[in-house]
């Protein structure tokens, strides 16, 4: 008996999934570098958000063309995975527990199996066409959001590599079916592959069999390679969109969080019974840092946001500051946060598990003040994101750091704040004049 293919398959599977699992662990470790926030309240609302936004693609279709194409690729991705399950079972056990590949054929009635494969073939074709259109939109139509400043060579190539991999996987799947002579002879479910099969008419049966085996192997190895490419690409959204929409914002978008560390200090200042000269109790914690200058100052939800971003740029194309030529791009905020987080993660790996100061931080080295001060906090980016990413919250945390830790607000804003502090209005008017309008 020849078990070598089964053994090779098992090794490929273990290596492929094992390496991916190792990177997922790293990903979770990096996300947990963020400080803790409670994102487990409003559970019914959160499940609803995930069902609607991630599973139901409700925000994707707000832009009908790309939304529709994306729904096809998304459905294809999910449904064709049933076929991958069969491939895995066949790869491990065909020739050992049973003779021929296509194990589902021995379980399901031929008509049901044919129906399943027919739908996979149609979806595979639609996915292929959609991916080609995606490629054309990116590279030929040069849609503006794919050519913004932050879309340097790597993000552009990364996006194209993903499209190429998807095209190749779909072609391999169809070729695999077209060259499976037994499957073609069955003449059930080969709705697309029957038109590819004649291409191989002149070939000998053994050559066709080799092509079939080749396509089968390349298809599954390609899927494993793609799985492992995810971590190194912008494409993690296919997995992280689900937790990200679950942990996304449930409060009204206009509501910004009240910093608890500030609340405690303000309460102390307002409490007449507190003795300002009382000795500090022993072992008090160091005062919290206000706002964020690096990724560790952000929350784990914000870091999850960064890994979820697939750089579609809908946020940036809706941003009023970006539309009017300012440097701010919400997508760049997310890409910078992710890139810095990756850098910090690699630093931790290289230094035996602890972060060694590298003299860099998210503020200034990645995100400049000019970008931060261009934001109007209008929430257009938050609204536009198809997977509930909140770039605005990161901008706000960094403004807080600039103002409260560095007193580095623009001069005009300092004037405004001085006015609020002294006379309860952003302009130098006397609070005693607040009702003068009624007599004017």
């Amino acid at each position: 008996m020849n078990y070598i293919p089964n053994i090779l398959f098992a090794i490929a599977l273990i290596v492929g999934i094992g390496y991916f699992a190792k990177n997922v662990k790293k990903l979770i470790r990096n996300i947990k570098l963020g400080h803790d926030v409670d994102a487990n309240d409003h559970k019914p609302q959160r499940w609803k958000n995930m069902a609607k936004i991630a599973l139901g693609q409700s925000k994707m279709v707000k832009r009908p063309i790309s939304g529709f194409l994306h729904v096809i690729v998304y459905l294809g991705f999910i449904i064709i995975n049933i076929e991958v399950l069969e491939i895995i079972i066949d790869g491990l056990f065909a020739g050992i527990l049973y003779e021929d590949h296509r194990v589902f054929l021995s379980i399901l009635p031929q008509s049901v199996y044919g129906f399943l494969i027919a739908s996979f073939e149609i979806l595979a074709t639609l996915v292929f066409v959609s991916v080609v259109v995606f490629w054309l939109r990116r590279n030929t139509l040069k849609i503006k959001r794919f050519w913004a400043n932050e879309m340097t060579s790597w993000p552009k190539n990364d996006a194209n590599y993903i499209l190429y991999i998807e095209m190749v996987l779909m072609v391999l799947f169809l070729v695999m079916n077209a060259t499976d002579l037994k499957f073609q002879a069955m003449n059930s479910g080969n709705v697309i592959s029957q038109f590819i099969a004649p291409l191989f008419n002149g070939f000998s049966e053994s050559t066709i069999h080799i092509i079939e085996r080749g396509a089968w192997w390349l298809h599954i190895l390609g899927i494993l390679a793609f799985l492992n490419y995810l971590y190194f690409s912008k494409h993690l959204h296919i997995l992280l969109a689900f937790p990200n929409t679950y942990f996304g914002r449930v409060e009204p978008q206009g509501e910004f969080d009240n910093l608890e560390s500030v609340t405690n200090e303000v309460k102390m200042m307002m409490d007449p019974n507190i003795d300002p000269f009382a000795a500090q109790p022993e072992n008090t914690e160091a005062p919290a840092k206000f706002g964020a200058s690096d990724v560790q100052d952000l929350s784990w939800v914000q870091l999850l946001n960064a890994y979820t971003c697939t750089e579609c740029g809908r946020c940036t194309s809706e941003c009023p500051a970006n539309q009017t030529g300012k440097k701010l791009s919400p997508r760049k905020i997310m890409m910078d946060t992710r890139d810095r987080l990756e850098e910090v993660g690699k630093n931790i790996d290289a230094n035996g598990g602890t972060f060694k100061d590298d003299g860099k931080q998210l503020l200034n080295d990645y995100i400049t003040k000019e970008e931060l001060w261009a934001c109007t906090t209008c929430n257009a980016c938050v609204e536009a994101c198809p997977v509930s990413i909140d770039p605005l919250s990161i901008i706000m945390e960094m403004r807080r750091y600039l103002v409260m830790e560095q007193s580095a607000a623009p001069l005009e804003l300092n004037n405004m704040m001085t006015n609020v502090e002294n006379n309860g209005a952003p302009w130098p008017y006397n609070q005693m004049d607040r009702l003068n309008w009624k007599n004017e």
Partner: protein
Amino acid sequence: MSNTLKVPTMAEYLAEGKQPEVLFWVGCMGSFDDRAKKVTKAFVKLLHRANVDFAVLGTEESCTGDPAKRAGNEFLFQMQAVTNIEVLNAYEIKKIVTACPHCFNTIKNEYPGLGGSYQVMHHTQFLKSLLDEGRLTIEGGQFKGKRITFHDPCYLGRGNDIYEAPRELIRKLDAELVEMKSCKSRGLCCGAGGAQMFKDAEPGNKEINVARTEQAIDVKPEIIAAGCPFCNTMMTDGVKAKDKESEIAVMDIAELIANAQDL
């Protein structure tokens, strides 16, 4: 001719041992900005017309802290918030109406966590409820058949999902409501939010208020309706920048309704 409006304060109400139906939170723009003061007065006239028992805080009102918070100064925001909450709670305020979406959002969403929970309404919501209760009638008057486009304030629309109340009021004027290219949840900001009102914009190739005004001009309105004093200023400036003052007026919804009735 005296223009004095009857505007009772909470202090006066307390002295008489009475509690008003609603507190009108005027806001800094509504108190001090010449353009916004007209909106404040128009709204007060409508409150009188509908026999609403209201009061203001007057000299006891202070900035909600919104611009400080959005600028990143959480300290100043919370100091303002806690001070205001003390005043509001001392007067046992239950219901607040304001013509400023920034004040509205801050008091409604950010004060509860600091000890101040009230029922807060934007003035367009409040006017809509007066209409529904039959306490206020709206006539088209001079605005009948006029082309009006509504500019969604970010902190009313996206911030708090309120898109319909202002639009229903405009429709009640028998006006022709036209929508801009970006409207409702995709409405383009006027450029004033997030404390931008108080500083120059960062370098770019256009002012945001001009970009938004261009979107409005595209639908050829006679009036751009606003629901926020900041948007009102920005859109007015935008119309001036495009030399369209003689053709397009920028007006708050409260002004539209008050003017339609010659109040």
